[in-house]
């Protein structure tokens, strides 16, 4: 189903299943992503897009499968990955300035115990400039609008100077002009062989924005270059008709207290 990637894939996900409270919300995901592409993840609410990103980054326990980045286990390449969480995932009434948040992007490089240096501030300011937020560097984060919060998170991710970026809905609450500017930025990054994976909701813009798409609805519907993958039929399969059977079985697993993916056996379908 998926075209072969000749070079080492930036990301390989193999037979990944993730469950919450025993109920699987992602079933047997298999995919390989090439380096240097702008890749969209699309799917309806609750499809498991955020879960896929988090599981890939090792933030959630896997029920089965494995993830490799640049052909290595994730913990070996932590300093090459960067994450933009969904904006609502943090409490913005936290005593910190925009600059403080962007500087967090440097913590991975700094390591434990070390203090932030002037050079880190330079990088942070540069990243703020890229997202058009340099004027807000000293603003309290509790006083930001939704779009500004989003751009702050983006600047923090940029400050990591990573090779692969996972962004969960970076355009939520961002105005059209800013969205254009950010997409330009992301495209420039992919030209420099960075891989950028973006959860996206606006189907209109998918073909303009992304080189590749991952179409997801609890299971993987399709993954590949946008021209060949983003088809009417795949869209129908992703968004049309609820996967009632799959979710019913998931509920059953929880209700019956079924063992959670013992060994390598496949879930009963």
């Amino acid at each position, binding site marked *: 189903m998926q075209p072969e990637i000749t070079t080492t894939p930036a990301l390989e996900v193999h037979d990944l299943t993730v469950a919450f409270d025993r109920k699987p919300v992602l079933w047997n995901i298999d995919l390989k992503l090439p380096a240097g592409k702008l890749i969209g993840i699309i799917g309806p609410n609750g499809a498991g897009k955020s879960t896929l990103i*988090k599981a890939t*980054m*090792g*933030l959630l326990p896997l029920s089965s499968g494995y993830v490799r980045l640049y052909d290595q286990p994730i*913990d070996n390449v*932590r*300093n090459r*990955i*960067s*994450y933009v*969480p969904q904006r609502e*995932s*943090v*409490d913005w009434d*936290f*005593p*910190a*300035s925009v600059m*403080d*948040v962007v500087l*967090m992007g440097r*913590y*991975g490089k*700094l390591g*434990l*115990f070390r*203090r*932030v240096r002037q050079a880190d501030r330079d990088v942070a300011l540069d990243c703020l400039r890229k997202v058009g937020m340099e004027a807000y560097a000293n603003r*309290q984060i*509790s006083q930001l609008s939704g779009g500004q919060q989003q751009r702050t998170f983006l600047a*923090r991710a940029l400050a*990591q100077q990573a090779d692969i970026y996972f962004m969960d809905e970076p355009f939520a609450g961002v105005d059209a002009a800013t969205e254009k500017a950010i997409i330009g930025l992301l495209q420039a990054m992919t030209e420099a062989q960075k891989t950028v994976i973006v959860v996206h909701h606006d189907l209109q813009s998918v073909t303009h924005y992304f080189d590749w798409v991952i179409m997801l609805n609890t299971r993987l519907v399709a993954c590949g270059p946008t021209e060949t993958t983003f088809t009417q039929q795949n869209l129908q399969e992703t968004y049309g008709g609820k996967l009632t059977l799959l979710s019913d079985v998931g509920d059953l697993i929880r209700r019956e207290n079924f063992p959670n993916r013992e060994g390598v056996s496949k879930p009963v379908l």
Partner: protein
Amino acid sequence: MNTLTDFFSFSDPNIRFVVIGAMLLTASSAIVGTFTFLHKKSLVGDAIAHAVLPGICLGFILSGTKNPAYLIIGAFITGWLSLAAVEFITRRTRIKEDTAIGLVLSVFFGIGIVMLTVIQKSGNAAQSGLDHFLFGKAAALVGEDLMVFGTVAVILLFCVFLLFKEFSLLAFDKAYAQSIGLPVRRIELVLTSLIVLAVVIGIQAVGVVLMAAILITPAAAARFWTHRISVMVLLASLFGAFSGLAGAYISYIAPAMPTGPWIVIVISTIAFISFFLAPRRGVISRMIRQRAIRRTINNENVLKTLYQLGEESKNFFLPRTEADIIHKRSYPSPLLTAVLHRLRRQGYVERIGTTWQLTEEGMSRGQRVVRIHRLWELYLTTHVNIAPDHVHDDADTIEHLLTPELETELERLLNYPTVDPHQAEIPYKKPV
């Protein structure tokens, strides 16, 4: 006799012990407490405070002495166990964290009280004073205690200094911290150990029951005054140290007064004052800002009414009676009089006998309000697709709020229209 100078000369070694001990305790638990507060673990602090009691009793039973080292080890162990129990319950069952904390707190505390009673009934002479851990014994601190407190305070400060950025990041965005590969579990382990340590030491001054107050209250008070974590930590420790000093002083001048509870009363008062007085976040400054906004709205509404009266009679500078104004738009009469007098002082109207007349400036300000109101109505109908009969109330608020920059932008966006959705003229300033 001057108690104040007696006290602050610290010539009496007992006073020295009490004051230094109390300040060390309160300041260091305030520093750790700031992170407890930011990690939203305030309740956990309370649970630990109650859960160390059985550990203290156990330490006494096993060692047979009140040597603080044994008691602290015991306290540390059960404090930790209680946290493990909370985590186990929230992970493995459907019970939510707050319920789990309540459960663990009462079970551990209950066991502690039972053990304490058993020890007291046992007739062991060494046990006298063990119940100090319930309510604290700050006034009876001795040199030996200071050594222990000092050591612990240094450990706490050192750890917080080393892990400052990690603690902050974890409190703000744990998933992100994990994604960049920080050893999140281990850092949390350190923080929890620090909380347990601070509690174990702190209860010797204020006791189990009041411990959560000296852990969390300084941080809560400090939060009102600052938006920066480093400043917040500093302020919290200052507030804590001050309450320690004040508590010690109060029980010095009135020996019947217990030090621990007074420390808590002082720190609570500081929190209370912060709640009312702090700039921006405090209640009073918010009230003042609200009041200023209400005044502006009243001022502008009256100017708007005078302007509209002027539109009707095609003369903006006719003198109007208060009845004229109320006829156009109803105001409570005393309010209107007060507002008009204020407007006169500000130079927007003049008083002629019992009538009022717009000045040039008043006319132009009234005109601006009317202009923004109508522009906004137009904007809502043409750009936001809201029905013309729904836009009035919105515009009534916006007219007082819009900055000159936004006003210009609105005019440009709408291309300087001349009439609003209700066909009323949109007035512009005449070029002079």
